[in-house]
């Protein structure tokens, strides 16, 4: 299967990426938003950030990195709490599925505007 060191290497790299994209995400709501923080949550401005290709790509990348990092993190936590082949298998499968589910669900929110409301 996949080596644990590979999984952890990706955990570290996604962590670094999340730091950068997270700062960007926070900045997009405060510094870079026209009108500052409370205005950045206005419907029109939110739609702009989902439809503009650069912002949408950044959000999508952020979501991808987070999906991996968060659910691998949960997996590590859960594997440490209990051992045994049944539990280990259940945790691995559930966290992988949850990561994919979170990614797809968030992607749907981002893509809805690009597909004209098809999904």
């Amino acid at each position, binding site marked *: 299967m996949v*080596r*644990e*060191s590979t*999984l*952890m*290497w990706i955990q570290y790299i996604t962590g670094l990426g999340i730091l950068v994209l997270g700062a960007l995400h926070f900045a997009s709501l405060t510094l870079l938003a026209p009108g500052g923080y409370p205005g950045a949550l206005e419907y029109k401005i939110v739609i702009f950030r989902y439809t503009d290709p650069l912002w949408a790509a950044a959000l999508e990348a952020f979501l991808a990195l987070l999906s991996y990092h968060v659910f691998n993190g949960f997996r*590590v936590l859960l*594997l*440490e*709490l*209990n*051992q045994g082949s049944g539990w*280990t298998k259940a945790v691995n499968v559930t966290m992988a599925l949850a990561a994919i589910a979170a990614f797809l669900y968030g992607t749907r929110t981002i893509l809805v505007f690009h597909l004209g409301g098809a999904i």
Partner: protein
Amino acid sequence: MAASEQKQLEFKVPNLEGVEKPIKNVIFRVSRFDPDRDREPYYRDYEVPVYRFTTVLDGLLYIKYNLDPTLAVRYSCRMGVCGSCAMIVNGRERLACKTNVLSLNSNIVTVRPINNLPLIRDLVTDLRPFFEKHKKVMPYIIRDDIEAHQDREFLQSPAELNEYMMLTDCIKCGLCYSACPTTATDALFLGPQALAQAYRYTIDSRDAGAALRFDVVDDPHGVWRCHFAGACSAACPKGVDPAFAIQQLKKLLLYKRNAMKSRKPAPESEKVREGTSVEEVLKSMPKEWPSPPAPK
């Protein structure tokens, strides 16, 4: 270098306070557990007279000799080199023989067995899981020609020795294993001692077993379940610093995997060790060792 006049040797009367007579009585709150009678451990108080240099081990043996002979406690060298007397004293992982009771600054000394290992009785834990994990990382030099020439040394520079010398001080006491937060819930985690020894042998320039050990430690319950809490290094009574070794092991796995696998181990010396060969030594070994001379 005999001088004409020798400096008068001054004999200072040593400070005997607390050496000849006990300074005070201290309560030893000792965890007791009889597997045939008790469901879980409980604390029992004993009053112990304490001198200036009384250690926790001395106190426990006083209890055993004078107050309660049923107390089970492991000890051997009583000087901090065997690692038998590892226990938790006032909440901290300590060697009982190296813990001066007065230095604890407390009238109650709570003594508990170390964590995360099955409790057999009183202060004695089952160290077998700890030793099994140590054996799993193959804590010995692995190379193809280890049997070839036993009469010459492997060439290792002082710099190469320094890389792992610190880690050879490990006395396998189990205090790091007890302190580690991961071992508290993860029964399959190798533990700081085994992982530090894995690094000690992998980085040893005489060793060629990196590939084998990497397979053992690069595991969901191996090196990667260490999160650098540093409790192991803080608890180690010999200054081995297993946390350092484990981070270096992670570095090898992330960046130097192939380099370590293809590394050529230290070469043999050209010089044969002077003196007799191994075969001759074995032949000339006496069947019976001579007994010491009879006392006069």
